[in-house]
């Protein structure tokens, strides 16, 4: 069965420094992978998705992620953090059924200090 591990529950960075949120996945199929962001008291918003095309995926707000099959990883990066990036981030893998289920990681809370 598909699964996702987010390696850090919390990540703290200073404004203007790079962001790295780590994600490893397990899948018996060629997966689709997603990153979602959730700002406080809001629903989830799609940041980016990988669907077996280019391995480097660019998303909204300057985020990008690289699919590495050999490492079963899909880490999220941003060159320079902004205060508005403070939120919870979820790494997500497609399920292995025909009903488009998604399997969510437990989330990484990104804290950005001035």
């Amino acid at each position, binding site marked *: 069965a598909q699964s996702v591990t987010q390696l850090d*529950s919390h990540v703290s960075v200073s404004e203007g420094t790079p962001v790295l949120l780590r994600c490893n996945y397990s899948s018996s*199929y060629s*997966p*689709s992978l*997603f990153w*979602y962001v959730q700002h406080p*008291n*809001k*629903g*989830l*918003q*799609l940041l980016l*998705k990988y*669907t077996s095309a280019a391995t480097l995926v660019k998303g909204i707000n300057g985020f990008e992620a690289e699919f590495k099959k050999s490492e079963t990883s899909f880490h999220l990066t941003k060159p320079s953090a902004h205060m508005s990036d403070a939120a919870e981030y*979820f790494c997500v893998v*497609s*399920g292995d059924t*025909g*009903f*488009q*289920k*998604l399997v*969510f*990681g*437990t*989330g990484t809370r990104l804290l950005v200090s001035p």
Partner: protein
Amino acid sequence: DVKVTQSSRYLVKRTGEKVFLECVQDMDHENMFWYRQDPGLGLRLIYFSYDVKMKEKGDIPEGYSVSREKKERFSLILESASTNQTSMYLCASSLIAGGRHNEQFFGPGTRLTVL
């Protein structure tokens, strides 16, 4: 712009009450989902529906039921609310065409407190 709306942002109910959470999407999506979100556990799937009147159990269906009478509306029902159902509930929808590549679109969530 795509939109998923949920009937309440905050809800407080008493133990034993029957609770209805409503979700409406305006994107003509076939699939609809109900999740609960708890700190440290991420999102866990309660039920989903791939068509009107069709439903499938997710990972944690116990204590919940659902109803989908119209394509745009998906209701989550707590038959007899209990304190361990205090949580954030998120509704989502997605297309069937394109299969596993399709992202889900989320509503703003309902924070339910059961006293």
